[in-house]
């Protein structure tokens, strides 16, 4: 009796331990749980579909950069555009925004625009680097590989080109894995020469390997022609006139690229990705793919009260830009709006409201398109188009002393704008130096508010003089140091490879 009692207890205890033991078996395996809701870069770059969608992600970063308010970089703080006087009254964010125009004391390493532009560019570069590192190892055809690599390199060059122009020497991560970056949280600055070297080699690769414009399914993608045009712009920026000329020249006669007959048609939504276009930042009506530029410029309610905006008086052209057109220039009407309406379609007079009453830009008019509102515009933004190439080519030829060729190309642009040849209209031809100035004016009239002005002025060494002469808000503040943006604080704080003395002078 006593024995049985004990025995049964022993068996019960054993049973419990056996049960517990069974429970424990396999418990460490249970801890191997990988979240099923996302993919890692390694998982993505393993087949053709993965490579293609990785490339889409790089383009997406360009959309991110340009859908944000950083799209103003290149437009304001120039002789072409400015922010309105009352924008700073909206608070901190907007004061930082305005400083990019006024070069005020808020134009610091902590400025939101200065930091945000830098961050967005590096995001694009990092995504491109991952693609360039991963694609060679994927089992796909060489043609597919080279097309994908070409697109990734084109995009990397595009982002580095922005960075090197705005900030000068910058940290330059590439597809190579860097132990320095891992240990110090970042790389030191690479010289402008080194950055341009990478840009040129990336664009040469892209120009050699990408499909030609108009190829099947490559609408909106980087093409051979886009790469050549950008490479030409890079050579021009480096004052490498010969290379600029030879790189751009084939584009002038290419069968898949011609000027649109009517300037105004360039800015009709239905004509996006047209024959003149070489590369556009694509936007669409889908919720996350819209841009805010129409809102900032007031490109809504232009002739119909239905499409609302909000704000709309953030960025306006300078008087200098508005008044720079010759009589009969069709571009003036295609570029500016001077009438404003209330919701019932009645004209509104903003004249008492300081500079708000002045002309606004209407190039990105949403009233005839499919956009939902000013803040949700589906309008694309030109990055490169043939008119730009023609003017760059003219510039290169002029610098090479071929003024006559340069004049021919200038006139090609003038004629499309409804103007006679310069010589006919003004009764005189131009010297090399005069043509230099005229070409810069022509670039503003042709390409105004398409995002290049600040870079054009900097490239030609005229930023300080032009801004002082024509941008009343910036004139008192701009100095030599403003030829470069400051390296953002967030980079300094977290990149141990940078010393405080590495900051651009004056900041």
């Amino acid at each position, binding site marked *: 009796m006593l024995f049985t009692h004990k025995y049964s207890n022993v068996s019960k*205890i054993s049973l*419990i331990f056996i049960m517990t033991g069974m429970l424990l078996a396999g418990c460490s395996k249970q801890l191997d749980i990988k979240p099923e*809701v996302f993919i890692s870069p390694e998982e993505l770059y393993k087949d053709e579909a993965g490579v293609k969608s990785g490339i889409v992600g790089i383009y997406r970063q360009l959309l991110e950069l340009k859908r944000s308010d950083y799209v103003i970089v290149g437009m304001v703080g120039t002789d072409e555009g400015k922010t309105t006087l*009352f924008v700073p009254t909206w*608070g901190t964010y907007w004061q930082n925004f305005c400083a990019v125009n006024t070069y005020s004391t808020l134009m610091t390493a902590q400025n939101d625009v200065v930091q945000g532009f830098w961050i967005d560019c590096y995001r694009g570069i990092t995504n491109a680097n991952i693609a360039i590192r991963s694609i060679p190892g994927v089992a796909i055809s060489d043609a597919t590989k080279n097309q994908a690599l070409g697109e990734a390199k084109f995009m990397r060059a595009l982002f580095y080109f922005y960075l090197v122009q705005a900030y000068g020497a910058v940290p330059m991560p590439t597809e190579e894995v860097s132990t320095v970056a891992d240990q110090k949280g970042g790389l030191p600055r690479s010289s402008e020469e080194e950055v341009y070297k990478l840009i040129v080699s990336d664009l040469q690769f892209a120009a050699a390997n990408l499909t030609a414009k108009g190829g099947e399914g490559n609408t*909106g993608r980087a093409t051979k022609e886009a790469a050549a045009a950008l490479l030409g712009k890079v050579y021009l920026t480096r004052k490498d006139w010969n290379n600029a000329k030879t790189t751009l020249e084939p584009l002038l006669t290419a069968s898949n690229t011609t000027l649109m007959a009517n300037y105004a048609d360039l800015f009709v939504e239905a004509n996006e990705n047209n024959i003149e276009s070489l590369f556009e930042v694509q936007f669409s009506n889908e919720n996350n793919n819209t841009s805010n530029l129409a809102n900032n410029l007031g490109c809504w309610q232009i002739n119909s009260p239905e499409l609302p905006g909000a704000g709309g008086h953030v960025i306006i052209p300078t008087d200098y830009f508005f008044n720079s057109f010759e009589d009969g220039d069709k571009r003036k009407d295609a570029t500016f709006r001077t009438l404003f309406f209330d919701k019932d379609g009645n004209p509104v007079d*903003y004249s*008492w409201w300081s500079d708000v009453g002045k002309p606004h830009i209407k190039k990105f008019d949403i009233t005839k398109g499919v956009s939902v509102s000013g803040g949700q515009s589906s309008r694309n933004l030109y990055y490169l188009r043939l008119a730009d190439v023609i003017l760059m080519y003219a510039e290169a030829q002029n610098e090479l002393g071929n003024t006559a060729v340069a004049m021919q190309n200038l006139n090609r642009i003038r004629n499309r704008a409804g103007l006679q040849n310069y010589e006919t209209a003004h009764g005189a031809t131009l010297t090399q130096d005069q043509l230099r100035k005229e070409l810069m004016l022509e670039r503003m009239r042709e390409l105004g508010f398409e995002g290049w002005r600040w870079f054009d002025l900097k490239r030609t060494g005229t930023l300080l003089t032009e801004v002082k002469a024509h941008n009343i808000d910036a004139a008192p503040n701009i100095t030599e140091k403003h030829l470069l943006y400051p390296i953002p604080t967030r980079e300094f704080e977290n990149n141990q490879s940078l010393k405080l003395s590495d900051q651009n002078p004056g900041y």
Partner: protein
Amino acid sequence: MAQIHYGTIYAGQQPLVVLKILVMKNITSFYLLLLFVCLGMQVRVQAQTNQLHGRVLDATSKKPLPFVTITNTANKKASQKSDADGNFSMAVTGRSTLLFSYVGYKSHTVNVSPADTGITVTMETDISGLSEVVVIGYGQQQKKDLTSAVASISGKELSEMPVTNINSALQSRVPGVQVTNGGFEPGGGTNIKIRGINSLTEGSGPTYVVDGVIMTGDIREINPYDIESIDVLKDASAAAIYGARAAAGVVIITTKKAKAGRASVDYNGYYGIQKISRAYDFIDAKDYANLRRVALSDEDPVAWPLNDPKTDSVVFSPRELQSLAAGKSYNWVDAITQVAPIQSHTLSISNGIGRNKVYLSGNYLNQGGIIIGSNMKRYSVKGNMESSVTDKLTMGLNTNISHIETDGVSKNAYYNAVTMSPLRPIYDSTGKPLVEVDPSSGRISADNPVALAKDAINHSVDDRFIGNLFLEYKVIAGLNFRSNLGLDVYKNQRFEYYPRNTYDGYAPLGVAKVQNFGYRDWVWENTLTYDYNPSENHSLNILGGYTTQKRRQEYNFEQASGFPTDELTYKNMSLAARRDNISSDYWNRVINSFLGRVIYKFKDRYIFNVTARYDGSSNFGAENRHGFFPSVSGAWRLIDEPFIGFKMKSLVNDAKIRVSYGVVGNQDIGYDRIYTRMDAAAYPFNGSSQSTGYQLGGNAGNSALKWESQRQFNAGFDLALHSSRVQLTFDFYNKDIRNLLLDQALAPSQGFSNKMINVAAMNTRGVDIGLKLYPVKTPNFDWQVNLNWSKYKSKITALLPGRDSLSPTLKVGEAPNSLIVDYVYDGLYQQGDDFKLNPSGRPGDIKVKDINNYGVINPYDRTIVGRTTPKGWGGVWNYFRYKRVSMTVFATYMYGHDVYDKAYTDYLYLGGGRNVIVKEGLKYWTPTNTNTDVPRPNAFGSSLRMLPQGSSSFATEKGDFIRIRDITMSYDFSPDLLSRIKVRSLRAYVQVMEPFLFTSYRGIDPEINGNMDPSVRADIYPRYRTFLLGVNLGL
């Protein structure tokens, strides 16, 4: 012979129980026989047996005491319990001594003789609380044996304060526990910090354990009336049994179970009203209109002369001009607020007679919001049952099912109301909220808050099931096996609709959002406990166990806009013109653990405790998945030492010293932080439809992440003097927290925005003091005071190597998440001042200091202007009773903390970010009124004129306060009266919550989480005062 009176419940019981009675009879006979053998020689009694009937009452209230254990000292096996009316009936043989014992009362002995037939025994409450049972993890302990810092609140204390949320009950009642409100909308959450700041990331607060089930998130689903006790495990020794989840402290909640031998029905209910308790005193429409004219005219007196119709047409909108002409003004705050009712009803049945114990309860709570359109309803049912099939096997089930419906206040309805011009009409001619469309933008210029509150939908539904099924098996004497299977299923649905008369819904023609969030947590715990008492001097309690906990969490969200009509709201999303957003998320997590504890007691006065837990969590990478969390503690019951003489004992009733040291962890990282993920990144190549793509997310994965580990030392003592009428508990603690999880910002050139790492360290040390006083304790008059005071100091000791600051608010030597960093207010500019620092400034504008002397004001001039951690806080609870009337007054206090009160300074002057200003704002600066700190009114907003921008230390204020949290008057009906109407107990009370606030703070609420997070502003939802009428009825 001996008889055991079981009461009527046994009529018709199943055979098993009958059998049991027979067995017990036999045993009793055996003991009685033994008794005779032992005592027979000395006590020569005529073995006369008599049935003794008696009643047990509370000495002061004279209320019957149910389930008092009555033991015949001569025959310990024959103990029994008093019934629900305090009655008992016991067979007594000869002269006997009966011992009456009951938790919370002093034990009492009564000598009876067979001649006694009916006796009444009164018992006095034991105020020392030493015999109270405290729930510790996976077990319980008498309070006198505790070696660690555990603070408890009993269900009785809870029932005295009708709160809708359990955390509110802990507020200022438990030393070391800091509870702040997360919002005052009905159903709003609370933030709870146990012993200061424990991490940089400030995870989800303490771990809650409900009836043994470890949960996450707060526990507003549980009806406070269903709670038996709340025990807060504060130090590492107590909490280490919960290992990796214990760093922020552990709150153990035990729900009510039926008490053995008792059957009762209880109703608890209250009804009340809630009113705004403190509001801004705004200027009237006339002053307001004048101020706006002055402001514009001040900018340019030539262009905008004062008292000129032309100026008016610029200053005011056409509608405002109409109101001015008609002399009308509108009170927006009144339009959006209301006096709101609140009511709660709980009905519970508890039946503990016999082998099956059942506790059932149902609760209905309806709290109206003081903002129109906000409301919360909670329905909860609870069922706890336990069945002892044999002496060895017990099974039980605890369940809590709740359903909460909340109508939230859409976005900033209150904020919009207090910022609305008093000249703007609220309703249009048809009585609908007036919505104006701005002609220049074609959008609604500002939401009409009344439309927002009434017409926008912000409805959420929470369903939660918390339950566990347990099995307890007594393997052999002292050895118990327990298996506990727990489940926590939570589902939250959120439905929002913004119709065309709201800002969000106007342009897109209606916006609907539907969100589903849910998780399922299950836990299986198996533990063995062994009690071993080899001799009187040694006692050993050993616990060992294995647990596994698994969670699955899901989330999905959809948003669409463009509906044919507002009538359908969110109910048919397929009618929308645009599908704006779809997202979903899903994850699993597993934590497996071993745990063990040994409690050794030597001579009842030296107590040692060794605890350890070994956790493995799927949150971390393979190499850092496991963590070990050991702790040791000891207590010395000084009072029980022989050298404490009798004289000393007459003064000191209890003296105990406790010391503990242990390691606990925090595993609270996002489930994806060890991975680098690619997010969806589409691009619309042909401008119309997008291609799918992927892009690196902002977070760089770190597979080397590990637990935060906290080493905590605690030393404390418990002291009771003067018949326990003075009871003091003191604790000092020091916590060194290492491997702190830190979301490190990366250099943007690295392409990621951040990466979580474990390098930082911090220290938190503090003191918790609790004091209970019983200044007066007489049958007619009682006065009891509970006081507590807590303080802590947290500081970061290391961030990244070589970096003593990562951001203006994260610095070595300072507490994390508690700094107010701003420009330093330097008075107002006066005429003739140098305007070098603010070239566009004018006299009357705010001046800030150039801290770094760069000659310009830039963001580097921002510095620490305040700290939100208090120097001390606590509560004072007073209880007075005169006969049957009692009153409690509960005050809470906090001092030494700063509050960022931009809300108030914004209301102070025109252009400060608001339209409407408070009366004090009329003392604004003018060339003739220069001795003021109210800036001049500013027509174009402050920012342009007040370089750099935004706020300054002008907006930071001291937040010291004393708040009377509640005053309660109650009346207990007399037992005599009640027994006539067959009622066990009846208490009626009236209560005012938040009647008074004493503070020099100028804003609304000095208790807001005063950091610079704009989402925690006082003007989102105002605080309110509640007046309640309630009853507690027991049958």
